[in-house]
């Protein structure tokens, strides 16, 4: 090292630079911070959460209640909704209600349903997937068939039948979404557990006398943090769209409570959106941006937590390039 210092100071500086040890958490955060799309998405989600939390403040600031109808000021004399303006920043809907205030309350519903349904569905999926993968045999056969069964049922039709009997409600929407969303993560976890079960460290734990519960909790599940986190994040946008769809079809949130899907369905009613574009653009836009943000965030998390998955594409890229240039050289 001292020789190198004499020969080339620049090289020496590299050699003597202190190597800093970074944990995997720090590395993940550094990778995430470098991913501008994911950062933007994260920022949007944060803003959305603030927007949802401040819904009563928005209502107080504008002086318009969530379900309050302003038939005299909010509608034109012909009974048509008013566009964005001073009193109604984002316009009004067919009953003269403030679109901005309703968007804020709708954000609460969407986020609540998205997060709660995804977390519960992930918990169910992970539990069932782990049991099926770890114990194998009959348990696996049975649970895998159950997953196949739920996956091959036309879920919107079943939701329809269920709602027609029980009547629409927020709780029922969440239950329906959970029931039809846990299967995917269940399958992923099952196949991962199946291969982890064969690994040496599990065998070592078993030979040390650990029981199945201890092995699953202490050895198997910690190794599945990445797929579980990524798949749960990816489940949020689909739950949000699922809820919006149910509300859009009149099977979800009960009016006059606000939900983005319900607002869009009101806009479609009587082709009202043809004269009142703000009734589609704002709820539709915020719904699209929300799902987009969660999807980008999920992609970013996957890349940051599991850089291997990304590198595969790049290796292929160089391999292909080199084979092409080799062909060119031969020709």
């Amino acid at each position: 090292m001292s020789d190198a210092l004499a020969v080339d100071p620049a090289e020496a500086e590299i050699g003597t630079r202190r190597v800093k040890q970074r944990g995997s958490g720090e590395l993940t955060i550094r990778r995430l911070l470098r991913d501008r799309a994911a950062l933007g998405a994260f920022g949007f989600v944060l803003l959305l959460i603030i927007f949802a939390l401040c819904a009563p403040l928005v209502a107080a600031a504008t002086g318009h209640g969530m379900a309050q109808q302003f038939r005299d000021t909010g509608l034109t004399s012909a009974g048509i909704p008013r566009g964005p303006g001073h009193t109604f920043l984002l316009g009004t809907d067919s009953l003269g209600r403030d679109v901005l205030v309703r968007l804020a309350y709708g954000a609460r519903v969407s986020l609540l349903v998205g997060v709660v349904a995804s977390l519960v569905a992930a918990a169910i999926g992970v539990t069932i997937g782990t049991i099926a993968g770890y114990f194998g045999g009959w348990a696996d056969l049975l649970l895998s068939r159950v997953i196949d069964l739920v996956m091959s049922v036309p879920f919107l039709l079943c939701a329809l039948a269920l709602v027609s009997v029980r009547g629409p409600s927020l709780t029922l929407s969440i239950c329906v979404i959970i029931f039809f969303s846990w299967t995917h993560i269940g399958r992923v976890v099952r196949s991962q557990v199946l291969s982890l079960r064969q690994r040496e460290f599990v065998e070592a734990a078993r030979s040390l006398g650990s029981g199945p519960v201890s092995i699953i909790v202490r050895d198997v599940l910690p190794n599945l943090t990445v797929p579980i986190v990524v798949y749960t994040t990816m489940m949020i946008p689909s739950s949000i769209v699922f809820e919006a769809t149910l509300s859009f079809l009149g099977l979800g949130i009960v009016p006059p409570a606000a939900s983005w899907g319900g607002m869009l369905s009101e806009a479609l009613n009587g082709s009202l959106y043809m004269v009142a574009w703000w009734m589609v653009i704002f709820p539709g836009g915020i719904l699209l941006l929300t799902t987009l943000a969660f999807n980008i965030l999920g992609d970013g998390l996957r890349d940051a937590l599991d850089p291997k998955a990304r590198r595969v594409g790049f290796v292929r890229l160089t391999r292909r390039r080199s084979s092409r240039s080799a062909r060119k050289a031969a020709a």
Partner: protein
Amino acid sequence: MIRLVVTRLVFGAVVLIALSIFVFGLFFIAPGDPARALGGDEASAQLLAQIRHSLGLDDPIYVQYLRFIDNALHGNLGFSYHSQESVLTLIGERIPATASLVLGGVVVWLLIGIPVGVASARSPGSARDRLGQGFTLVGLSFPSFVLGMLMLFVLYFLPRQANFTLFPAGGYAPLSEGIGQWARHLVLPWFTLALVNAAIYARLTRGQLLDVLGEDYIRTARAKGISERRVVYKHGLRSTLTAIITQLGSDVAMLLGGAIITEQVFNLQGVGALAITAVTAQDRPVIIGVVLLGGTFVVVANVIVDILYGLLDPRIRLA
């Protein structure tokens, strides 16, 4: 191969039985008394008992269930509470609209999804790939009813304001009115139904093809001097087809949901619209009929896909 088909058929039957128990149980334990609904509020206890007896409501549950299945298997799904028409006829009238929508939608999404995926996979990391990936991301995030309403606004309402009609506002034109009319009414619904799935297929095709293009036999094919086009489409895409077909099988169930939404946006009088009307009107026989027929359709489609899968991929057939 025969074993595969038999296992799949048995599983399909299990799905159908589970679905029928679900539907039957749902309506059996549902609040509300059909006898009371038919007899009116002033009906005497004797009359109610008589109605229950004639409807078979006083039999044990399993007898009622078996009778329900027996009727369904004979094509008797009951009569609509409202129009008094046979449920099977009601659904039958709506099938052409839904079938046109769904089949056309599948064609459109495969025609968009696969080429986009192939283009991405052929030059990973390029501008074209990033464009394809962007399409995938936006497509995956677009709720189909938002897309449908935006398309109606941009491609129907705005042109109409300029006195220029591109597409109709919605509704279904049967094939008997000419294939041009039929297609013109369906173009927007097809794209609405197809975009989300096209994104899924683009991503799937890209991923699978990237894997395959790294294989040795692709290098061999290139070494033989085959054109890159043939290498990709003939040798590469062939082995990604199995993945695409598997995905197609699992998407059939989703397709029915998509059809319900699209029919709602474009006011297409299909089976999905029938189901929504039935739910609003509490027309139970119609709801049961739609769920059972929808389920049957999904199961049959899944079995067909599994058999296709076996035919396409010898590795599965021999296993």
